[in-house]
């Protein structure tokens, strides 16, 4: 997969050559089936209007087929990595929570069920250690701490 044809279209990356081919496939499948169905069904189904409605339904199934064919032919242009949060990231989240999300708060204020949930997730200690800075209840303390770790 050459990377020099990559573009961001409608929220994700595509390869322009694959995009053109996919659009052609999508158009061919949907229109081919639509026209074929219309031709065959008119005269076979009683009302012409229903024949067209069924042809449309088949045409839409055709567009799904076109999508399926494109999905088989062209692999996604995404780099998917299995991600495991590491401890350093967690500390960074704590800092962001403290500075942008209105403080950390104290474990002692939590209902027991929430504490139990944190313990099960192995996050109790993390939030427990994050506490002292918010004990002082001053505006400068969190800022100083953030400056210190940055």
């Amino acid at each position, binding site marked *: 997969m050459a990377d020099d044809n990559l*573009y961001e*279209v409608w*929220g994700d990356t595509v390869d322009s050559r694959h995009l053109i081919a996919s659009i052609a*496939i999508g*158009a061919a499948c949907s229109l081919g089936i639509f026209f074929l169905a219309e031709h065959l069904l008119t005269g076979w189904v009683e009302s012409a209007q229903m024949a067209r409605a069924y042809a449309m339904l088949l045409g839409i199934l055709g567009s799904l087929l076109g999508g399926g064919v494109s999905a088989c032919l062209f692999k996604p242009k*995404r780099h998917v990595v299995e991600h495991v*949060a590491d401890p350093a990231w967690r500390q960074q*989240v704590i800092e*962001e929570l403290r500075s942008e999300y209105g403080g950390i708060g104290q474990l002692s204020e939590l209902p027991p069920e929430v504490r139990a949930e944190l313990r099960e997730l192995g996050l109790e200690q993390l939030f427990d250690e994050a506490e002292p800075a918010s004990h002082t209840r001053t505006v400068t303390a969190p800022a100083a701490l953030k400056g210190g770790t940055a």
Partner: protein
Amino acid sequence: MEALFDQILMAALMGVIGAVVFSAIGLISGSDETTTLAPLTLLVVLLGVPAAGVFTFFLAGAVAKHMTHAVPTALLGIPGDTMATPLMREANFLRNLGVPHIALRKMISGAVIAALVAVPLAVLFAVLLAPFGDGIKQAAPWVFLAAATTIAWFSAGRWASVLALLPFVLVIIALQTFTGQHGVKLSVSYFLGIAIGPLIAALFAMLAPAERARMKRSEPRTFSLSPDVKSWGGWFPNPLKVLDRRQSGWTLATATVSSATFVFSPVAMTVILGEVVGARIKHAYHRLTSVISVRNGVTESTYIAEALIPLIAFGLPLSPVAAGPAAPLFNAPPRFTVDSATGQVNNLHNLLSAGEFLAFGMLAVVIAILIAYPFSMNFAHRAASFVSRRISHEAVIATFVGLILVIGLWEGGLLGLLVILTIGLLGGFLQRFIGFNIGVQFMGYYTAVLSVPAIIALFA
């Protein structure tokens, strides 16, 4: 008796189809509600499915989608659809803490609770509002004009959107007159053009050298997929145990509030109610999990209420959801119509009673929960992995292009296609550059069909 049984069976079957189809669509990130719910519901209407079946298909689809959209949002860090965007911040914090499965479970449990309370509440509010229905129907052209202006002002474009309504409405009228001269009367093509506008605009931009240079990327996007941890036995964890008591309480309360406020933008309600709850919780972890449960609950309840209340009380699409994704429930000519001159409606409003809306609404919600909830609880990781590794964006675009071609040709031949292209390009660019969003564009369409004839009559 047998007829009633048949009706219920049909409704249940359509509900199952809606829930399965939209559970799958919810997994595809960026699959907007309007672009997917509106055309498929329209198809169901036009194929002649009985009223109850149309309704359960739409509602089960919407409810299921707003559960499975939690999968890409929590595990991939990309919003599952438009309604998932206000959940990104909390979802990303929880993902980086290494507990994305908690984000996922809280979100879908909030959705279950909210969906269950929203249907009866929406029906109740609709019944309370119904006495004003006749007055509103008679004033419909002016109500739509006012609604279009208000929704435009509340969009990102503010005054630009309000003023852009004028040329946008004019283009629709011009196109209608033109196709009318050739004996072609279109409506679906306008809906589809508006809904798919951003894609059409993006494809045109690709053809222009300067824009293409801006869209160029040097490497594929990287998605980090979080691992999934299953910590319960069986298939159906109790949502009331996944949320703690206070979270369930907040979810119930916000679902109730958002069921009543049906005229506001669902995204705005989701943001605001999340903030209200967040401001009342001191501990950061508890705040994250509560806000994310509440917000996803609100995505369900606003959607349900915004579709149901106008439908039951007035039969007129007087909310952003009713004018957008739920539009085919109101207006799908030749089967469902809203008459411009008189405000006379012939749609689900006339075909189902308030009691039937309640019964079939609950049926749809229960079906959606039975399908989407255990699915997202148990298969989230595998589903997210499959979609991100196997379904290329090219394939998604190819499917939508096929959809545009078939629907356009079906409704109006070459003229239908040209209308989709024109409206899509205009609407897509207006959204991209001034924030004239899809909801405002739909209201613009209704202004053109409903308000403009009344304005012209006034001056004639």
